[in-house]
């Protein structure tokens, strides 16, 4: 499994390097290839968990308009969490490697334009292998005032289990006894539909619907529930159909060079869990290079039909959960974001950055779930070439 992770990392590095190299070559012969390189850092903090996730991504557009994308992300998770429902608080660090590849192209149909896109993703960590492929299409009508989108995603995950928080234990032939191997597989299909409409020169709106159906191993192998004095493993239904509707309206106010976005999402699934997520964003341009964004997001969910206080399960219960995500809770998120265009670097030693941008984002999340409050911090540098 470790070899596989290294191979994945090596493949991603080689892909990005070769993609960059091919751009230089194409630039020299045709002068028409374009692209961008993005370096991004992501950080997540909560009482029992720290996540650091740097990533590098490349985007290339060929002379005929075909777009190629690649991204490599490393996700370092420190400390398991009793808040996540595991039976004991065990400190550990786990690394997840993720590679995403994609390609897309737009076809001119005369009065309309059709864009087709194919992307895939592989994510690997010692106890989890996730794979997915997405086929998407977008039809642009009325001089691109109307965008109609559809996508279909299939995922297949292999769920494993390892023993954590102890010294590595191996047999004489080198087999890792902490690795319990594969405990199940999870599969899913997602159908996405979306509609975006330019309403006036200052107003645009969009709406969409996602239908997700998951089946297979839908619980967490590390969580267990005390049932009448006996500890039993978490057991969720093996199917879940999920529906979400979302919408967004954005208005630009030229007098103040600001923009207001209102977002709303509602969700319901067959486990009896429903949620609403209203959100507001305010953007303020400062000069020609800086944009600030303030953000507030509220999230409120009901509990699933089998979620109960941990001491109230009985032997006859068909399903058991210690997952905080299955309980009733709500959260408030406050965010600040700053984006800086690097045009001021022209005619300086850093001129190669002058078409790029740099942004920083900080979110504070107040949750009433067992996870507690959290911080999300992100930053990125994007350099076009």
């Amino acid at each position: 499994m470790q070899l596989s992770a290294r191979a994945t990392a090596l493949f991603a590095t080689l892909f990005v390097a070769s993609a960059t190299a091919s751009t230089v070559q194409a630039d020299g012969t045709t002068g028409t290839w374009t692209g961008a390189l993005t370096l991004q850092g992501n950080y997540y903090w909560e009482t029992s968990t720290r996540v650091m996730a740097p990533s590098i991504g490349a985007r290339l557009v060929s002379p005929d308009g075909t777009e190629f994308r690649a991204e490599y992300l490393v996700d370092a998770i420190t400390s398991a969490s009793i808040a996540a429902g595991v039976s004991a608080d065990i400190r550990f660090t786990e690394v997840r490697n993720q590679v995403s590849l994609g390609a897309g192209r737009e076809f001119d149909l005369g009065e309309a334009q059709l864009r087709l896109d194919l992307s895939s993703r592989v994510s690997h960590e010692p106890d989890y292998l996730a794979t997915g492929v997405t086929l998407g299409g977008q039809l642009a009508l009325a001089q691109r005032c109307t965008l109609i989108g559809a996508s279909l995603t299939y995922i297949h995950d292999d769920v494993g289990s390892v023993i954590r928080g102890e010294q590595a234990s191996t047999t004489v032939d080198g087999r890792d006894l902490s690795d319990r191997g594969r405990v199940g597989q999870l599969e899913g299909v997602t159908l996405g539909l979306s509609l975006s409409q330019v309403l006036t020169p200052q107003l645009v709106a969009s709406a969409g619907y996602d239908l997700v159906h998951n089946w297979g191993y839908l619980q967490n192998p590390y969580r267990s529930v005390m049932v009448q004095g006996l500890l039993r493993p978490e057991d969720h239904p093996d199917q879940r159909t999920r529906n979400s509707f979302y919408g967004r309206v954005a208005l630009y106010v030229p007098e103040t060079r600001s923009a207001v976005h209102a977002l709303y999402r509602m969700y319901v699934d067959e486990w009896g869990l429903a949620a609403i997520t209203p959100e507001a964003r305010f953007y303020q341009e400062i000069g020609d290079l800086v944009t600030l964004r303030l953000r507030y997001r509220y999230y409120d969910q009901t509990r699933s039909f089998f979620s109960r206080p941990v001491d109230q399960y009985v032997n006859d219960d068909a399903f058991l959960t210690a997952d905080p995500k299955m309980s009733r809770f709500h959260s408030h998120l406050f965010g600040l974001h700053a984006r800086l265009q690097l045009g001021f670097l022209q005619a300086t030693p850093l001129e190669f950055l002058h078409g790029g941008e740099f942004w920083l984002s900080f979110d504070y999340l107040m949750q009433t779930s067992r996870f507690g409050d959290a911080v999300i911090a992100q930053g990125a540098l994007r350099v076009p070439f």
Partner: protein
Amino acid sequence: MRISSISLACLALAGLLAGCATVAPYQRGYLSRPSMDFSSEDGETSFRAHVHDSREGATGGHGSTGGGCGCN
């Protein structure tokens, strides 16, 4: 909550379809500002979606999460 949610969705869709007037490309200068470009925040949104996937019951299902962080 389900009925009101569906009503809101229908209302939003009707609003969109009612606004099908064409705004010419040369009139869309304001809409091309970074603050009006929904896709300009894709990179930021991707990681945040992963966080919400692993901490909220109403997001996820797309396979972006793993087992180690209690995400499943």
